[in-house]
């Protein structure tokens, strides 16, 4: 049972994630833009953030992640990036994923979501904390 913030501009995907996460009794908060997301991070102090890469504004998702990690108050909140990696960023992403200075997130899952995979990664990140 944890408070999880989803930042994603696709309401349908947010609903799907809400169902998956609520099946494990997590409390789900959502935001549909980077700006709204950053506000809710400060306000709600979630234990985990699911952050969409939000590519129509290119690497907006990464900017949000960087801002969260640069803030003393929020930098310890783990971030799970949601992305259609191979499709959108190209294959380079995989190679650099280990480089933390480049990619300020703790892990990522590929869309479309596989519920079990998402849940496993969520549990793992919550444990780190």
């Amino acid at each position, binding site marked *: 049972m944890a408070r999880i913030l989803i930042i994603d501009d*696709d309401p*349908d*995907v947010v*609903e*799907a*994630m809400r*169902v*998956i996460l609520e*099946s494990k009794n997590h409390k789900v908060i959502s935001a549909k833009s980077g700006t709204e997301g950053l506000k809710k991070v400060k306000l709600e102090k979630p234990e985990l953030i699911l952050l969409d890469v939000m590519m129509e504004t290119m690497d907006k998702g990464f900017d949000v992640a960087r801002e969260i990690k640069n803030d003393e108050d929020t930098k310890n909140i783990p971030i799970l990036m949601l992305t*259609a990696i*191979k*499709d959108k960023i*190209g*294959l*380079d992403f*995989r*190679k650099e994923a280990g480089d933390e200075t480049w990619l300020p997130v703790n892990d990522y899952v590929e*869309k*479309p*979501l*596989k*519920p*079990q995979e998402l849940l496993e990664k969520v549990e793992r990140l919550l444990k780190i904390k």
Partner: protein
Amino acid sequence: MKYEGLLERINWLIRLRWIAVTGVIITVLVVQKIARLSLPFFPLYLIPALIGLYNFLFFLYVRHIGKKQAPDFETKANIIANFQIALDLFSLTALIHFSGGIENPFIFYFIFHMIIASILLSRKESFLQATFATCLFILMVGLEYFNILGHYCLKGFVVNDLYINKIYMLGTSFVFITTLYLAVYMASSISIRLKDREKSLREANLLLEEKDRIKSEYVLRVTHDIKEHISAIQSCIEPVAEGMLGELNPRQKDLIHRAGKRTNKLIFFIKALLDITRIKLSKDIDMKEFSIVRTIENTIALIEPRAKAKGIFVDCRIESTIGLIKGAQVYIEETIANLLINSVKYTPASGKIEIAAMDRGDSVLIRITDTGIGIPRDEIMNIFDEFYRARNAKEIEKDGSGLGLSMAKQVVERHHGRIWVDSEEGKGSVFSIMLPKK
């Protein structure tokens, strides 16, 4: 393209000149040993030797500027071509002078030089070369006629002193000079027409490439949009299918699983389409040195469980001398993996797959052999085409994307390599990839 064309033509001229030098020496030998004419043989051997010498120097120089790909290459190459042709004309005049002057029927060999000039040079330059040839000719004939320069008679071949016969001299000169100009006129007309045709073909080709690029961009955008939606659909189906909103009754479960399977197939297809479109649109791909041996081992690890499940024996022969090659490792790994996955898919139970990597010096040859269903003979030509699937492959898997092999071809060709297949229906297939190491 233009650069290479020019270089190629100059090299062609240099090659022709080697043939000419050989031809001259053989002709002089025949004249000396068989026809036994008395001529000043020393200069007749010296001149081809000198031609050979300057040809060698030109060869070195052209190779030098060709390697550097100098920016002013075109101007330089043009000057060289003009200079070479002028030298050739001078050498030919000298040869003719020492072997009978105007009496020598070889004077008409000037035509060849005019044709070469018309192919290599502009029309104006070709006419200038014709004028230069005319001047040289008139000078030679005139100096011999007025006895300022010695005349070497082709004794036994023509009547004596034909060269001081005024009518013969003027008549031959007239025919000779008009022949030169006519030759240039005709050859350059043909050459100009060919060049125009070449230019319009090149333009048409560029236009086609541009259209193809626009088409690819369109495909990319559409597939992108579709993928977004289909991905959201799949994300919504999964939690329902897994019973996260309560157990489904068997009918509900069945239908939702069918829906899930179809969206999955569509996602797989869209991914393949995006991959191939993206590589087509990318101007250059990131090339780094990597171990092809380890890459192959990765792919084998990937397919071994599937092969084992089907009772297929996987054999691997890798030559250890291969070392590192330069390329986009992720793409190459995906390509080899795709070929191996195909082999497992289309090889019946208890079959055999062999992957071999052979060192071929500057390149590496990767060969995947299976005892699978093979490819029908009349379809081998098409299997690298986008969306094409062979009849017998469709029987085994109804909805493959038909993009795997075209993607493989794209990847290999982007590495300046080659991919091909040998196959016999019912017996198996051999896919080969030749990749340059650098």
